[in-house]
C-alpha cells in the first residue's frame, strides 16, 4: 500500500507559532517518496524547524524553504527515475530493497543521525568522551595483552617447536645446563630435527664515551635456522660460529639496537664493535619484529654461545658445568614426529642422566617439554600472567560496560522524550525496523567516534607507560604498536558498544504501542517509560563500581601490607653497584685486592657510613644460589642427601653496610682467609631448623660436603620474596669462597642516587674496563618486589575510580532526568505545602534506593570476586572488613552527591512555572 508522507501535524508543539511555510511543505509532499523514508525526512524537517523556530522563527522559515528546495530538486529527479525503474521491475514502491536503495537509506540515516547528534552537543560530548575512555582503556590493555601473550613471535612452523626445560618438584620449568643440553641433543635425534639453547648475557660494549652495558644473548649455531629467522642484513649465526670457546668473535645486532645505536646504518655488516675490549665483527642484523626466543626480552645483540663465558668474565666454564643452568632450550620436531614421541625421548634422556649423574640428576629432576605455542614466557610465570591479563581485561571490560550503561540510560531518557515523535512516525506507517536502524545508526556513529578517540587515548596512555621508569631488574621489550589485531579489536569493541548501548533504547522507544503516546500526557498520567530499565542500569553500574573498588581496595591494602614488611636489611639509603672482576684479567688475589681498594675508596667518599661486598644481593628476582648443607642428626628431604640452603659470600663489612644485626658469636673477619679454618655465619632460622638444640656457635656443619664451623648467628631477613616465611641462610667469607661477582653496598647519610654514580666512577678510576653489570639504589632494588602489587593497585585502582566516575555521571544523569520529569510533581507538592527539604529527601531517596540495591549486589559480587584475587593478595584476607566497609560508604557518598545535586536544583524550581507548563 502506498503511503503519502505527512508532516506530524497533530504533534504537540511547545511553541507552535505559525508552522513551517505551507508552500514548501506541499512541495516536499509532492516530491518525497511515499515511503517510510519520505515520512521520516518530513518528520525530521518539521522537528528541526520547531527547534530552530524556538530561537528565531523567521530564520527557521528561511532555513525550511532552502531545505525544501534542495530536497525538492534532488528527489524530483530521483522520484521520476525510481518510478520508471520500479515499474519496469514490478517491485513494490514502498520499500527500495536495491543496493543503491540501501546505500541511500544508510546515507540518509547517517545524515539525520549526525544532525540529531550535533543538535545535542553536550550529550554527544559526554557520550564520545565516555566511550573514548572506555574503548581507550580496553584498547590500551588489549595492546599489552596482545604484545605479551597473543602476538606471533615470527617463528616458522611454530606448531613443530617445543620448549625444553629441566624441572624439579620445587621448580617445574627451569633452564638447562649446557652439558645437559648436549646430552638431550644426543638422546633425542630420532625425534628432533634440531635443538638449540640460548642464554642471556650482560655485555659491556665500548663506546666513544666509555662503555655501555647491554642485554645480549648467547645462542647456539642452530638458533636462527631452527626458529626460521632470516637476516635483515648480512647473515645470522650458524653452526660454523659455534665450534670452540672463545674462538668466534662475531655478533648479530638486534634490529632495534641497530636502528637506535647505529641509526640503521646500511653498511653495518663487516664493521667491528668492541665487546669487553675485544673486537667483534658484525655479521648481520635480525629482522624487524624479531625479539628473540623469550617473549618480552629482546636482546640488543646475539653472540655465539661459545663466547658468553669470555664476554661475561666468568672464572669457570659454564659450558662444562651441569650446575650452571642458564640455557633456554627450544627444539624442532622432525616431520611426522609427535609431541608424545618427544616426551618419550625426554623421559629416556632423563633416565640416562639420572643414572650417569646422580648427584645433579636427583630423582625429582627431569626434562619437561611444552609446545612453544602454548607457552607465553615460562609456564611458571604464565600461571600468573594469564590470570592477571584476564583480570585486567575484565576490569577494563567492566569500565566499558559502565560507559555503555550510562549511554543506554541517557538514550532511554532521550527516547522517552522522543516517544511522541516516534509514535507519530509509526502512526503514519513508518516501519519499526527502519526506525530502529535510524536510532542504531546514531549510536554506532557515536561508538565509531568514541572508538577513534579511544585509539588516540590508548596510544597516548601506552606512550606514557613505555616512558614510565619502572624498577625492573632487566629490560622488558614489548611491541605495543597498534597492529591489525589491536585495531580489529578496537573496531569490534566500538561496534559492539554501539549496538550494546543503542539496541535496548531503540527497541524500547519504537515499541509499537502508539495510542498512549499520541494521547496528551500532560494531563498527568503515564509513568516514565523505560524507567525500570534505566533504574536497572544504575543498579548495575553501582554494583560493578563496588566490585571494582573493592578489588582496588584489596590491592591497595595488600600493597600497604607489603610496604610495611621489613626485609630485615637495607633500611637506610644505600647504593648498590654490581661489578665483575673477570677471570681472564684478574687472579683471585688481584680481584680481592681490587674489591678491597674500591671499598676503601668508596668508604672515604663524603657521607658514606659503611661499605661492604656481597656476591648475591638478597631479594634479587634474577639470582638465587644455594649451598648443599648437611648437619649431623638432621635428616635431609626424601630422595636427597642434603638440604639446599640459600647463601651469599660477603666481606667483613657487609652486615654493617646492610644493617643486618649479629645476634650471637662474631661476624666475618679479615682473618677469615683462604688457608684459615673454614667458617660461616648462619641466620636464626638456620639455627631453628638445623641446630635446634642450641649452642649454634662453634658447631660444625658440612657445606657442599666440606666441614665448616659456625662462628656467628645473624638476625633473619628476607631472601627471595617479601612475603616469604623465614628462610635459613648461610654467609661465607669472601676470602674463603671467592666469587668474581660482587655487589658493592654503600650506606650513606646523603643521596643514594648520587652515591651510585660515585661508586661507578671510583670503580672505573681503578679499572676503566671493569664490568659494571647493574647499578641502583637499595630503594629501587626493593621496589622490584613491590612492583607487581603496585601495578595491580595502580591499574585496578585507576580503572575503579574511572568506573566510579562514570557510574556517578550515569547516576547523576538518571536522577537529573527522573527529577526533571517529576518537575510538575514537585510543583504540585510545593503548591500543596510540601517544604523543599522533604521534596529533596523524596527525590534523593529514590536515587539512593537504587544505589543501596546496587551496593548490596556489588558487595555480594565483590565477596565472590575477591576469592579469585586471593592468590594475588598479601597480608590481607579476601573478605577484608575495612575494604568492604569503606567502599560502600565511599560509593554511597559519591552517589548521594550525584543524586542530591539535581534533586536540590529541581526542588528549587518555580512551582508556578512547573504547574503552568504542559
Amino acid at each position, binding site marked *: 500500500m502506498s503511503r503519502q508522507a505527512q508532516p506530524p501535524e497533530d504533534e504537540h508543539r511547545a511553541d507552535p507559532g505559525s508552522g513551517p511555510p505551507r508552500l514548501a511543505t506541499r512541495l516536499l509532499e509532492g516530491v518525497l517518496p511515499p515511503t517510510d523514508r519520505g515520512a521520516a525526512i518530513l518528520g525530521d524537517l518539521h522537528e528541526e524547524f520547531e527547534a530552530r523556530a524556538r530561537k528565531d522563527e523567521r530564520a527557521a522559515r528561511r532555513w525550511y524553504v532552502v531545505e525544501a528546495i534542495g530536497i525538492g530538486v534532488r528527489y524530483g529527479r530521483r522520484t521520476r527515475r525510481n518510478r520508471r525503474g520500479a515499474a519496469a521491475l514490478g517491485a513494490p514502491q514502498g520499500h527500495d530493497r536495491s543496493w543503491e536503495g540501501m546505500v541511500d537509506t544508510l546515507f540518509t540515516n547517517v545524515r539525520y543521525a549526525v544532525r540529531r547528534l550535533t543538535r545535542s552537543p553536550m550529550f554527544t560530548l559526554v557520550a564520545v568522551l565516555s566511550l573514548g575512555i572506555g574503548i581507550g582503556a580496553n584498547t590500551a590493555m588489549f595492546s599489552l595483552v596482545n604484545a605479551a601473550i597473543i602476538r606471533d613471535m615470527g617463528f616458522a612452523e611454530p606448531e613443530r617447536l617445543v620448549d625444553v626445560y629441566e624441572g624439579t618438584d620445587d621448580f617445574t620449568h627451569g633452564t638447562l645446563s649446557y652439558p645437559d643440553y648436549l646430552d638431550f641433543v644426543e638422546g633425542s635425534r630420532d625425534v628432533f630435527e634440531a635443538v638449540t639453547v640460548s642464554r642471556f648475557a650482560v655485555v659491556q660494549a665500548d663506546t666513544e664515551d666509555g662503555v655501555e652495558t647491554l642485554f645480549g644473548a648467547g645462542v647456539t649455531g642452530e638458533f636462527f635456522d631452527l626458529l626460521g629467522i632470516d637476516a635483515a642484513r648480512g647473515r645470522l649465526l650458524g653452526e660454523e660460529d659455534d665450534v670452540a670457546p672463545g674462538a668466534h668473535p662475531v655478533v648479530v645486532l638486534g634490529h632495534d639496537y641497530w636502528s637506535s645505536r647505529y641509526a640503521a646504518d646500511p653498511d653495518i655488516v663487516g664493521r667491528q664493535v668492541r665487546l669487553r675490549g675485544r673486537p667483534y665483527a658484525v655479521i648481520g642484523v635480525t629482522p624487524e619484529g624479531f625479539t628473540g626466543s623469550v617473549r618480552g626480552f629482546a636482546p640488543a645483540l646475539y653472540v655465539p654461545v661459545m663466547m658468553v663465558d669470555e664476554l661475561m668474565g666468568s672464572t669457570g666454564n659454564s659450558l662444562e658445568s651441569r650446575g650452571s643452568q642458564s640455557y633456554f632450550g627450544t627444539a624442532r620436531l622432525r616431520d611426522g614426529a609427535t609431541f608424545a614421541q618427544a616426551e618419550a625421548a625426554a623421559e629416556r634422556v632423563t633416565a640416562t642422566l639420572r643414572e650417569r649423574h646422580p648427584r645433579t640428576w636427583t630423582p625429582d629432576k627431569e626434562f619437561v617439554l611444552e609446545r612453544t605455542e602454548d607457552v607465553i614466557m615460562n609456564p611458571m610465570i604464565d600461571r600468573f600472567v594469564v590470570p592477571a591479563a584476564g583480570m585486567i581485561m575484565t576490569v577494563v571490560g567492566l569500565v566499558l560496560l559502565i560507559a555503555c550503561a550510562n549511554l543506554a540510560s541517557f538514550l532511554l531518557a532521550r527516547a522517552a522524550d522522543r516517544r511522541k515523535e516516534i509514535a507519530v512516525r509509526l502512526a503514519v506507517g513508518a516501519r519499526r525496523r527502519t526506525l530502529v536502524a535510524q536510532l542504531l545508526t546514531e549510536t554506532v556513529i557515536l561508538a565509531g567516534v568514541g572508538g577513534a578517540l579511544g585509539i588516540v587515548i590508548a596510544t597516548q596512555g601506552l606512550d606514557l607507560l613505555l616512558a614510565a621508569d619502572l624498577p625492573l631488574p632487566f629490560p622488558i621489550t614489548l611491541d605495543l604498536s597498534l597492529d591489525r589485531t589491536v585495531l580489529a579489536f578496537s573496531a569490534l569493541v566500538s561496534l559492539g558498544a554501539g549496538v550494546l548501548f543503542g539496541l535496548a533504547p531503540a527497541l524500547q522507544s519504537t515499541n509499537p504501542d502508539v495510542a498512549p503516546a499520541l494521547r496528551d500526557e500532560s494531563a498527568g498520567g503515564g509513568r516514565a517509560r523505560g524507567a525500570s530499565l534505566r533504574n536497572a542500569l544504575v543498579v548495575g553500574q553501582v554494583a560493578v563500581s563496588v566490585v571494582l573498588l573493592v578489588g582496588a581496595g584489596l590491592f591497595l591494602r595488600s600493597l600497604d601490607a607489603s610496604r610495611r614488611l621489613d626485609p630485615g636489611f637495607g633500611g637506610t639509603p644505600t647504593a648498590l653497584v654490581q661489578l665483575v672482576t673477570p677471570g681472564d684479567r684478574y687472579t683471585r688475589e688481584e680481584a680481592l685486592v681490587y674489591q678491597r681498594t674500591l671499598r676503601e675508596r668508596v668508604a672515604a667518599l663524603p657521607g658514606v657510613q659503611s661499605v661492604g661486598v656481597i656476591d648475591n644481593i638478597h631479594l634479587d628476582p634474577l639470582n638465587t644460589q644455594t649451598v648443599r648443607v648437611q648437619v649431623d642428626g638432621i635428616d635431609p628431604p626424601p630422595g636427597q642427601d642434603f638440604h639446599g640452603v640459600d647463601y651469599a659470600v660477603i666481606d667483613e663489612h657487609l652486615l654493617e653496610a646492610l644493617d643486618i644485626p649479629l645476634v650471637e658469636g662474631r661476624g666475618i673477619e679479615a682473618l677469615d682467609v683462604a688457608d684459615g679454618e673454614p667458617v660461616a655465619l648462619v641466620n636464626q632460622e638456620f639455627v631453628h631448623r638445623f641446630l635446634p638444640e642450641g649452642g649454634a656457635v662453634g658447631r660444625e656443619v658440612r657445606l657442599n660436603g666440606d666441614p665448616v664451623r659456625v662462628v656467628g648467628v645473624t638476625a633473619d631477613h628476607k631472601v627471595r620474596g617479601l612475603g616469604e616465611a623465614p628462610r635459613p641462610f648461610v654467609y661465607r667469607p669472601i676470602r674463603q669462597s671467592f666469587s668474581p661477582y660482587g655487589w658493592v653496598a654503600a650506606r650513606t647519610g646523603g643521596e643514594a642516587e648520587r652515591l651510585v654514580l660515585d661508586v661507578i666512577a671510583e670503580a672505573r678510576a681503578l679499572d676503566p674496563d671493569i664490568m659494571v653489570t647493574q647499578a641502583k639504589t637499595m630503594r629501587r632494588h626493593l621496589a622490584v618486589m613491590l612492583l607487581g602489587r603496585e601495578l595491580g593497585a595502580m591499574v585496578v585502582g585507576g580503572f575503579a575510580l574511572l568506573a566510579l566516575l562514570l557510574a556517578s555521571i550515569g547516576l547523576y544523569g538518571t536522577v537529573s532526568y527522573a527529577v526533571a520529569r517529576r518537575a510538575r*510533581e514537585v510543583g504540585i507538592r510545593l503548591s*500543596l505545602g510540601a517544604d523543599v527539604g522533604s521534596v529533596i529527601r523524596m527525590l534523593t531517596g529514590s536515587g539512593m534506593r537504587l544505589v543501596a540495591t546496587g551496593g548490596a549486589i556489588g558487595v555480594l559480587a565483590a565477596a565472590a570476586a575477591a576469592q579469585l584475587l586471593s592468590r594475588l593478595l598479601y597480608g590481607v584476607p579476601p573478605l577484608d572488613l575495612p575494604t568492604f566497609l569503606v567502599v560502600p560508604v565511599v560509593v554511597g557518598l559519591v552517589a548521594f552527591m550525584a543524586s542530591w545535586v539535581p534533586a536540590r536544583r529541581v526542588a528549587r524550581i518555580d512551582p508556578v512555572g512547573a504547574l503552568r507548563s504542559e
Partner: protein
Amino acid sequence: MNETGPSIELIDVHKSYREADRTHRVLTGASVEIRSGERVAVLGPSGSGKSTLLNLVSGIDLPDSGTVRVGGADIGALPERERTLFRRRHVGFVFQFFNLVPTLTVMENLLLPLELTGSPDGRAHAESLLEAVRLSDRAGTFPDRLSGGEQQRVALARALVHGPDLLLADEPTGNLDEDTGELVVALLDELVRDSGTTLVVVTHARSLADRMDRTLHVDHGKLVEDSLTGTVPDLRA
C-alpha cells in the same frame, strides 16, 4: 484564621514576569477585597493575570509591590516556611491541568495533603470524598488510566481532603468538555456550599461564574467588579 474561610485583601498589587528579553506586566495596581466565606469568580482573557492572582493569594508567588492579606496576615511578609505551612493547612488547589502525581494512585494522590499535614486518620475522609466525587471504585487506579473529567474530580477531592478554609480553583473546567465541566462544577458547588470555605475560581465559563456570589474581571492588570454588581471599592481610599 477564622472558622469560616479567611477574608482576602489585595492592595495595589503589581506583578510582572520576564520572558526572554521583555517584561510582561500582569497585574498593575490590582486591589480587591473578598469577604470571609465568599465565593468569587475571576474572569478575564488568557494571560490577563487570573492565575497569577491565585498564586499570590496562596503565597506560591510574591507580588513585586503591594500587599496581599489573607485572614488578616500579610502573605508577602511571611517567611517561606510560614507560607508553606499556610498553604499546607489552609489552602486547597484545583488546577486546569489536574496536576495529579502520575506515580501515585488515586487514593495516594488524595492522601498527599494529609501526609503533608501529618493527619494519620484521614483515610476514611478521603474515601468518603472519593465516594462524593463518584470515584470510589477507582481508588487504586493510576491517573493515566482516568479520563480528564475523572482526573479533575480526583483533583477536586484532593483539594478538599484536608479541610482547607480557602479553595483556589484555576480554570477547573478549562480542559474538560461541556458536560464533564458541568459535572465538576456541580460537584464543586455541592462540596463547598454551606462549608464556609472561601472560594476563588478563575474561569472562562460564564455558567460557573454565575454560580458564585460575586464575579471579578481582570482588566488591564486591574481587578474590576462585574458590571452587574458594580466596581470594586478602592481600598487605598
